[in-house]
């Protein structure tokens, strides 16, 4: 049973993600997480400001339940299915991150600098989390999907628009890590 408690290798995890996509298709739904962010806007009353949010959000209730499940899944995996959650990174990446001030690299699941409660009293890091979130939300809706909707569902269906979006994801990610990170960390 030890394999459950260790990190799961890519050749197990990847096919299990395809299984999630397949199960959602088999219950008549589509795999896509970022559309929940739009639903949440609608529930909060965003329909008053833009037509984009005027739709029957109850038709998307199923997806919100999937999100609730994902939260519970995160709780279960962290508390009951893991012994050591530190991520075994490439040593060069650990050295590189530590030189940038990410001291927890190699010993944690998430960088302490951004994801410990200290961030609430650190204006710079708080600002970075807000900018990151804004870009994810704005970009996902502009591109019409995120990693699940485009990179997994769309590419699996050989959709050219999804390939363009995924290339965009990578251009953005590479620019952030290679050109913007040296300026901010």
């Amino acid at each position, binding site marked *: 049973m030890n394999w459950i408690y260790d990190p799961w290798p890519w050749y197990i995890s990847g096919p299990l993600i395809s299984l999630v996509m397949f199960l959602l298709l088999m219950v008549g739904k589509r795999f896509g997480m970022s559309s929940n962010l739009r639903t949440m806007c609608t529930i909060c009353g965003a329909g008053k400001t833009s037509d984009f949010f005027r739709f029957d959000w109850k038709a998307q209730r199923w997806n919100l339940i999937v999100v609730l499940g994902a939260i519970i899944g995160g709780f279960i995996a962290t508390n009951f299915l893991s012994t050591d959650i530190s991520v075994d990174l490439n040593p060069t990446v650990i050295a590189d991150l530590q030189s940038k001030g990410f001291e927890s690299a190699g010993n944690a699941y998430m960088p302490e600098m*951004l994801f410990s409660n200290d961030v609430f009293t650190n204006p710079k890091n708080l600002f970075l989390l807000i900018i990151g979130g804004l870009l994810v939300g704005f970009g996902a809706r502009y591109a019409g999907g995120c990693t699940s909707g485009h990179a997994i569902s769309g590419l699996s269906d050989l959709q050219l628009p999804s390939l363009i979006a995924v290339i965009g994801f990578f251009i953005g990610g590479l620019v952030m*890590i290679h050109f913007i990170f040296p300026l901010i960390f």
Partner: protein
Amino acid sequence: MRSIIYLLIGIFFGIVLFKSEAASWFRIYEMFQFASFHMYGIIGSAVGLGIIVIQLIKRYKMKSFNGEHITIIPKDRSFSRYMIGGILFGLGWALAGACPGPMFVLLGSGYTSIIIVILAAILGTFLYGFVKDKLPH
């Protein structure tokens, strides 16, 4: 009953994302440094098997558990919205280290500050709806 199925699929998805480390900020950073095969293996094998699954569904006109035909609506043709939207998303993905699935998984894992990312992502979605008609699509 159906709600329970959606909930179980969500729980399974959350466990897979956490245990695969795809929800780890560090793994995303490492991926954009091309320093590990791990994330490429996950996405590559998910898409590889996904292509086979979708081809089989189409070829054998498979029906869902409810007996409905599974139809997948093709995405609208465009270049600019996918490229520009994609780049903006990628910038945020690398900075926050979480995309819209993992951010909820991490909330369950107990990383309180991810709530900032989630609220900002909802706000970003709202801003998109606000300026949508002025953007090239």
